[in-house]
């Protein structure tokens, strides 16, 4: 069988999990490129006082708001979530559990197409005259009162949500019923566990967001009163419903990102996962269990009784326990490992730093007394970029490098990879450290201009240089993937000598049906069987 024979229909209309995974990868990286450009525009705008890119001071805020809207919505909903639960889950879960495909290949294709039309709808927001300007949160009353379009935002959420829910159902059934004979629960890759947990979260919490944005749509276009206090509605109702999903959504990103890192770290350190059971049953499922009990901390300053604030502070701080278990497992896996420092491992290692900074800066934000001061400042902005945005992006990059030979059959260029990593790592820190500093001093989030705080101009300039550095690093990274995929060195079957099924039992890239021979496993097999060699 040669790849050249496959017709275009076998790609566009594919129901194969690997090709669907690649479609997710391409779509999410395209969203990443556009949303990243928005970030650059935001940093250029703030680099100096007064209007820089947005034209005049009266309409400038509107233009800036559309960038914020698209940057946030596309990064979270169209890059991080589909990159992790779309690309990685699709391509690697069936390979890791020894299945020929997912349980419902056509529903899988349905999901990826919903994702694509959702991106089209989100991008169409720029073409229509009334470009959405409601952030990725869409809070009423502004989102109901604005003259800009709200329906494209709502339907983008609907399409992506439906896509994710069906993906969740599909993969939960796949993991439960289609594991290779002999594969027990304690023999699953950590990535499979983290992704299953993420899918459980998606399944339960997305519908609530879908309900919330539907009410928004009805309030704006059908004249209902869900969020209209004058008629007996409640504005905070939206914020509660929104964060009831959108806080757990952080774990939908965080958990699979951690899973990718576990695969890379175990593979590169040639070591078993330290404390596997504590990591999975305590860490992964602990986070999942707590995920739904902390959303109110996004509303600390919105007004609530003190006893709720205190309860939320406790549950929010508790999250650090399962997260700590997982990070401890990572360090334990590295400890006395034979570590190969290639690009994938460098990204993974840097994530240990990023999650530390992001995690530590989360503690003051969880504290009710501190958060009154820090809320809505650049400190929050920097915190969640470290712990969620950059951490997850670097984890994705780590995974893309690690599995690059598997999906392309070619080795990535390590020199360019390391150069890109170095520039990216320096760039993100130069961008976001200044924001911590001015955040503590009171620089508000989301402002396009800051005439009242001229003392922060220098910090914004540094952040702007950081963003330019990141742009260079990203360009090098993405070009490196393109050139390596076309002209890279041919990859051996198992270049990292990994013990995981996707490397040991199928060719790179795998053909239809994945495995040349049916997979059967013994009781002492694990995907991390390194110390027995």
């Amino acid at each position, binding site marked *: 069988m040669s790849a050249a024979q496959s017709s275009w229909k076998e790609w566009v209309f594919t129901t194969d999990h690997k090709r669907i995974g690649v479609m997710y990868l391409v779509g999410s990286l395209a969203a990443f490129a556009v949303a990243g450009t928005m970030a650059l525009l935001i940093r250029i705008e703030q680099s100096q006082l007064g209007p820089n890119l947005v034209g005049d001071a009266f309409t400038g805020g509107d233009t800036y708001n559309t960038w914020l809207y698209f940057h946030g919505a596309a990064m979270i909903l169209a890059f991080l979530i589909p990159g992790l639960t779309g690309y990685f889950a699709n391509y690697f879960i069936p390979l890791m559990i020894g299945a020929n495909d997912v349980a419902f290949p056509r529903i899988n294709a349905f999901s990826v197409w919903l994702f694509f039309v959702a991106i*089209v709808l989100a991008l169409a927001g720029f073409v229509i005259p009334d470009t959405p300007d409601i952030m990725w949160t869409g809070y009423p009353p502004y989102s109901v009162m604005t003259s800009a379009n709200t329906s494209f935002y709502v339907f983008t959420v609907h399409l992506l949500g439906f896509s994710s829910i069906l993906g969740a159902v599909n993969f939960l*059934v796949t993991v439960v019923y289609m594991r290779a004979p002999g594969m027990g629960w304690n023999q699953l890759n950590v990535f499979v566990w983290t992704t299953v947990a993420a899918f459980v979260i998606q399944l339960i919490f997305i*519908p609530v967001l879908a309900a919330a944005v539907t009410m928004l749509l009805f309030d704006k276009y059908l004249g209902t009163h869900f969020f209209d206090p004058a008629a*007996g509605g409640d504005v905070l109702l939206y914020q509660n419903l929104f964060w009831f999903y959108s806080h757990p959504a952080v774990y939908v990103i965080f958990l699979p990102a951690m899973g990718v890192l576990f695969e890379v770290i175990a593979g590169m350190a040639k070591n078993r996962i330290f404390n596997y059971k504590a990591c999975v049953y305590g860490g992964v499922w602990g986070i999942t269990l707590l995920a739904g009990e902390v959303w109110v901390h996004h509303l600390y300053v919105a007004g609530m009784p003190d006893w709720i604030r205190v309860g939320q502070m406790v549950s929010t701080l508790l999250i650090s326990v399962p997260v700590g278990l997982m990070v401890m497992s990572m360090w334990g896996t590295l400890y006395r490992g034979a570590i190969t420092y290639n690009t994938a491992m460098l990204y993974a290692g840097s994530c240990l730093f990023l999650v530390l900074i992001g995690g530590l800066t989360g503690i003051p934000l969880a504290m009710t007394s501190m958060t009154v001061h820090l809320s809505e400042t650049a400190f929050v902005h920097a915190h969640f970029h470290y712990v969620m945005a950059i951490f997850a992006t670097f984890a994705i990059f780590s995974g893309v490098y690690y599995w690059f030979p598997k999906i392309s059959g070619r080795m990535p260029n390590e020199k360019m990879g390391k150069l890109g990593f170095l520039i990216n790592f320096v760039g993100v820190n130069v961008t976001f450290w200044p924001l911590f500093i001015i955040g503590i001093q009171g620089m508000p989030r989301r402002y396009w201009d800051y005439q009242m705080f001229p003392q922060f101009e220098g910090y914004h300039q540094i952040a702007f240089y950081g963003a330019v550095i990141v742009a260079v690093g990203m360009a090098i990274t993405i070009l490196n993937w393109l050139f390596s995929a076309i002209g890279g060195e041919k990859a051996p079957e198992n270049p990292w000598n990994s013990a995981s099924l996707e490397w040991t039992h199928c060719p790179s890239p795998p053909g239809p*049906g994945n495995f040349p021979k049916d997979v059967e496993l013994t009781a002492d097999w694990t995907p991390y069987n390194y110390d027995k060699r």
Partner: protein
Amino acid sequence: MSTAAGHEHHWEWSWAPTAVVIGTFLLVPLGFSAYFVYEDTMLTILFTGLGTPILLAGIARWVHEGLTQKPLVAGLAATALPIFIVSEIFIFLGLFTAYWTMRLSQGGNWPPEGTPELNLLIPVIMTFFLVGSSITYHVAEMKDEAGDMAGFRKWLIITLILGTIFLGLTVYEYQHLLHIGFGPSANAFSTAFYTITGFHASHVLVGLGSFLAVLIPAFKGRSNHTLTASVGVYWHFVDVVWFFVASQIYFW
């Protein structure tokens, strides 16, 4: 899993999912935006006119493939549907939460001013038809399992008629309320009333559509027990939710 299908060397593909997505995309997000946001009749007709046939063709193709092709592992859909229903439960919970929040924050002032007296006989009749249809569908399912295609078709048609009457009563009630000026924007109660009953009615509509997807192949003597069972689970769910809708909206 050691089926021969897994080892055949060709890439599987199907245009059905793509067609369903594009049809839905034209019909719902674009159709809604054209009609309610931009109030453009021509665009609305264009989007719905294009979307409907593409959607129907996709569904027909999907059902055809489902009935003629062998899955990797048979019967998993009957397990997947209850998992999907977990999601459905939470979307209803989201809507009910909004209703409870609005209602409980009003204290004794409920229903708010401008709410007409609802005819409570209608939901009772509707309950009768919906529960009846759940029972008749169960009979149809048993006929299918017994291989009695004529009986299967007969009970499916009865179920379809009962469900259609239910939906017709919703339309009748809506028309009456709209006629006396009680639209979705009237007050907090109308907000919850139309959203929750409308959302439930949309599920009834999907249920009726899936009956057609089972019935049409049945006329050619084809059926799939997993599909029949899955549609049944969905329909019983729609039935159970109705008790919550009716008790919360009409009788509380």
